[in-house]
Each structure stands twice: as C-alpha cells, then as structure tokens.
C-alpha cells in the first residue's frame, strides 16, 4: 500500500512541481526509469512470493539505477553509448517480462 501511494504522490508531485533535470543527467533518465521498472516488478513478485523486504528493494533499486547509468555513461565516453543503452534496455526488458509473467501467473493462476 505504501509504495502505491508513494508512486501516485510522486507522479502528482512531478506533474505539479515539474522539477527540471540537469542537462547532464537527462540522457540517463529513460535508462533510470527502465531500471526502476525492473526493480518495481522484481519487488512486486517478491511481495507475492512473500519474501519482500524494504531494505533489499531500496538497495537493489539504487544499484540498478546507478549501474545502468554508469554503463551508459561509460558507453557515451567510448562512443557506443546508444548501443550500450540498447543492451541495458534489452536485459532489463527481459527481466521485466519474466517477472511480469510470473506476477500474472501468481495473480490469475493462468
């Protein structure tokens, strides 16, 4: 319940306040969001399996975002930024799909 409320509050805050992201960080926002979605789906699946823990979620989320942003940053420095961004999206996308399928099975038994 807390995370859902938090998410809604965050969306409302984001729309109302419109915080401006520094230009330097802008390219990493989409990647950070994909990483956040991965962490969210993983957390929801863990919740359904009854193993969810706040601390692990916080740590996994922050590390996910930082590592994916770092990968893309390094890629940008050596000229393969967009390719590495694709790699990150593909890997996280696979995880998101697998977790979403597991969540669907757990919720609807189908």
């Amino acid at each position, binding site marked *: 319940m*807390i*995370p*859902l*409320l*938090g*998410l*809604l*509050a*965050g*969306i*409302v*805050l*984001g*729309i109302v306040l*419109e*915080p401006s*992201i520094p230009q330097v960080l*802008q390219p990493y*926002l*989409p990647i*950070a*969001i994909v990483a*956040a979605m991965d962490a*969210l789906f*993983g957390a929801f*699946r*863990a919740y359904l*399996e*009854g*193993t*969810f*823990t*706040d*601390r*692990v*979620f*916080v*740590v*996994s*989320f922050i590390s996910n975002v930082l590592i994916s942003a770092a990968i893309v940053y390094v890629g940008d420095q050596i000229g393969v930024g967009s390719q590495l961004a694709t790699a990150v999206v593909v*890997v996280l996308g*696979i*995880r998101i799909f*697998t*977790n979403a399928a*597991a969540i669907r099975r757990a919720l609807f038994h189908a």
Partner: protein
Amino acid sequence: MDLLNQIIRQPIDPDYAVAAARGDDSVKGRWMLAALAVIIGAMFAVAALQTTRAAPALQSERTELINRVQDAEREQDQLRGRVTSLAGEIATLRTAALGDDDAASALEMRLEALDPVVGNVPVSGPGVLIVVDDSPSATADTRDRVLDIDLQVLANGLWQADAEAISINGHRLSSLTAIRSAGDAITVDFRSLTRPYRVEAIGDPRTLQARFVESSAGAWWNDLAQNRRMRYEISDVKQLDLAADPGMVLRHAGKATS
C-alpha cells in the same frame, strides 16, 4: 547464451530470499521505501512531461528548416532569372561593341555556332526524349534505383551520339554540369531531381536514337531495364525546347584590340 538463461531463470533479486530468511524488517525501511516510491513516481512524471514537451519543439524545428530550404530555393530561382536577363544584356552589349566589319561578323558566326553547344542559349529542335525511373518493385535494394552514375552514363552516351543539347528534368547540361547524388536524391547543377527522370536531347532525328542505342550507354541502360526492371522509354520528338543553362556565366572578358 548462459547469461540470458541466467537472467530468465533468476529474474528476481536473490537477496530477497536471503533477507526474508533472516527476517529483518524495520520502520526505517518503510520510510525509505515510501521516499523511493515518491522518487520513482516523480521520475516517471518528469520523463513523460519532457518527452511530450520535446515533440512539438522538434516538429517546429523541422518545419523551420524546411521553410529555410524553400526560401533559399526561391532566392536561387530569382538569382538564376537575373543571371539569364544579365546574360541577354551581355549579348546585346557584345553585338553593339563588335561593330560590323568582317572580323566582327566572323566572330559572331563562331559565337552563334558555339553558343548552343556550350549551353549558353536556349535551343529548340527535333530530338529524343528518354524517360527513366526506378524499378517499380521499389525495394530497399539501391541497385534497383536509378543512380547518379546511370544518369551520367545516359548523358555521356547522348553526347557520344552527337546530341547538340541535353537537359534532365528541365536542367540544361553543359560541360560544367555536375550530376551527383546527395542523400537520396540525384542532383543536377546542385538542384535535386524528382522522379521520373526526363532526359531530352536535341540532335539529328535520323541518327540520334539509333546511335545512342548502339552506344555503350544504350547497352548499359538495356541491361538496367531488363535485369533491374527499371523504366526506360525512348521516343522521338519533333520539337523540343531546352532552356539555357543559368550556370553558364561570363567568366572572362577583355576589351577588343582594334
């Protein structure tokens, strides 16, 4: 593939199981979770806002660029018109300056013979019209499309067949004309062409078409038409009107020594 297998088999952080077994749950963790949820929500909202904001800006930039290109093209047309009128002025001034003695009339004869060949004046007369176009099976294969070299070969073949004047889509060719590709389009005199390509050539109506077909350019285009199924139509025309090449300008002038 081991990496992908592992991602699919273990999509959930293994630490969840470990931490659950240890059973640590704290109030501080709850607050962290709530704060993180707010941050994630804000991230979604900001990213979505930024993307929707950026779209109209990109669109307006694009239309702005298109407008600038069109303006520049209009200006170029105007300048070309001015070049043509100035060239006419030069011609009248030259006739006036030459006077009417024998040497002058000999010079004028030479000018009259050379002007049409060089592309300096508009010409009209019988000739051939060749229409070429990309293959209808417009695939991504660039070999099925008319390339700059194909038009170059075509033009050179027509010169070889003794064409006196050639124009492609209304752009008169001279010895200074460049036929090149820029991006997806073929340009003649740095102006892009739109398909289909109409090549008009003025020459001896009895021999021009036959000599062109027999030349290596004719063989090249036969091959393209048969193997690449490009459009290639050649027909005799009784009357063709070709404009002068506006790129031909007076580059050198001197006072007559008399």
